[in-house]
């Protein structure tokens, strides 16, 4: 009796699994079978994954014969996939390193071509009950950087009553994400490191979610991940100077100090369908999606386009 019952349960579970698996693969195959679509493989930056997904979805309406498959994983993952030839274009929230370009040349014989597709302002998030409204780069460096001496909210001149113990809980990212690299460089330049002991989360969205639920926390993430339940601080270049909030205008004017370009890399000049896709991303229709997702669209003559020249 008992064995039979167990077997019965196992059987039910297996049937369910097979049914579910069957549905999934059935859906997939019908998609690929009904049309002979050209597929553009796209992977990379976790910061840009929502944006890339939105582009891909909209492009399916514009150009039904082309399907763009997007995955995240991080800037480094995207570049590794590009070098290995498993993706056509890679999203990147930092510039490719010289060593990576060398490796791409050695592996594929082609030089990666850089394209700036938009800008992102890194927002500094705190809990919504945190009374703080603005912060300076210096203060952030003292919170996050090695040798920095700020560990309590009271040292920043505020009394944070909902945070028991007054400790500043630093939320960071895993040490090889593009966002981490950019934030470290913006705060500390090229030589110093972050203090150990920060909570290093694995995704842009996780950072915001954790800050939402943790009164003592401070964290950083792309401004596209803002929700209604966290507070975004205004950031000043230096203590005493005017602080600016992370928005499109301030990022484009250069007033907001921690804004960065977002890149897409291809191996050699993109050709064919991939080129059409990239051209569409740079067009007004593609750039509208950039702003709809909370990022900063390209604008001709903006002060931050200095490195876009090198891509052409």
């Amino acid at each position, binding site marked *: 009796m008992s064995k039979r019952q167990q077997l019965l349960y196992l059987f039910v579970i297996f049937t369910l699994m097979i049914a579910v698996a069957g549905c999934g693969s059935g859906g997939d195959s019908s998609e690929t079978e009904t049309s002979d679509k050209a597929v553009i493989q796209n992977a990379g930056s976790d910061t840009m994954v929502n944006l890339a997904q939105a582009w891909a979805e909209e492009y399916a309406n514009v150009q039904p014969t082309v399907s763009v498959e997007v995955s995240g994983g991080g800037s480094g993952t995207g570049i590794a996939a590009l070098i290995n030839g498993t993706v056509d274009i890679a999203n990147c929230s930092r510039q490719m390193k010289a060593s990576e370009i060398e490796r791409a040349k050695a592996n594929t014989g082609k030089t990666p071509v850089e394209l700036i597709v938009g800008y992102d302002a890194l927002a500094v998030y705190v809990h919504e009950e945190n009374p703080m409204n603005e912060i300076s780069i210096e203060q952030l460096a003292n919170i996050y950087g090695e040798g920095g001496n700020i560990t309590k909210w009271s040292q920043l001149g505020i009394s944070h009553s909902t945070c028991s113990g007054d400790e500043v809980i630093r939320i960071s990212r895993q040490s090889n*994400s593009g966002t981490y690299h950019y934030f470290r460089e913006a705060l500390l330049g090229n030589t110093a490191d972050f203090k150990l002991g920060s909570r290093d989360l694995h995704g842009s969205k996780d950072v915001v979610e954790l800050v939402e639920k943790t*009164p003592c926390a401070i964290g950083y993430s792309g401004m596209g991940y803002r929700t209604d339940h966290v507070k975004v601080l205004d950031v000043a270049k230096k203590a005493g100077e005017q602080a600016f909030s992370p928005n499109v205008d301030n990022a484009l004017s250069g007033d907001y100090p921690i804004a960065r370009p977002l890149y897409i890399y291809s191996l050699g000049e993109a050709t064919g369908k991939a080129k059409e896709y990239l051209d569409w991303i740079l067009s007004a229709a593609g750039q509208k999606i950039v702003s709809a997702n909370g990022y900063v669209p390209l604008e001709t003559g903006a002060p931050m386009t200095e490195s876009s020249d090198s891509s052409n």
Partner: protein
Amino acid sequence: MINRSRLESVTERIIEGIIRFCGFSAILFVFGIFFFVFREGSGFLFSGLDIGQFLTSPEWFPTSVSNKRYGVLALLAGTASVTALSMAIAVPFGLGAAIFVSEFCGPKLKETFKIVIELLAAIPSVVWGFIGLTVMNGVIIDLFDAPIGLTVLNGGIILALMSVPIIVSIGEDALKAVPDSYREAAEALGATRWQVIYRVLLPAGKNGLLAAVLLGIGRAVGETMAVLMATGHSVQFPSNILDSVRTLTATIAAELGEAPVGSDHYQVLFIIGILLFTITFIVNLASDLVVKGIRNK
């Protein structure tokens, strides 16, 4: 038997061959994995890595621009603290549940229990991690007035919940394997139920129960996704159970994806893999010796 046809003897031999291959393949795979992990990490292990510093320094700065430092002491402490806490919770609960299921409850309740426990084992680790990150974080902040809920405590409780099913099912099997004649003899001598368990069953099932606990420890040391999400992933020595830590496994999971293939950082992550291999090897070896020691008494 004598008139066995030729076909039968051929199929017999083929099937024997297949079964033999299955047996040897386990060994092959283990050595294959060990070889691969070792090969990926060996270059840096023998030239470049300061092994003393690797094992004794708590400074883990794999992507520093100016001064890369690879020290895993804090990560070791993280793995040890989370595993110890989870075992402190899981062993009494798991063994207690095993004793209850095997000795006290009726057949109907027993079936229900076993199915529920197996369901507990079927929950994927990423779901446990998600519970740790979203539910337990808030609960721990509220209950303990802690600044953050992603702590040793959070990871320990989640790992305990994950290893309890293993401890219960293997522990229950071990107790079931104790012959009924032992129980009957003890009861005939006038032993109470507690005395039967404490004086007869536990000593008789010692090996199996130890195996259950060690497999639970193995589960806890090797678990990755759940601890990555629940412990806060923070490189520091825990001073109490409300500190965040980072474990060896979580470090590999978080950083391997983006470490450039073949770089020092990539190789160090494989060396951590070798270290984990060594730890589990020592645990298994120790348990073998302990079990043998018990048997020889």
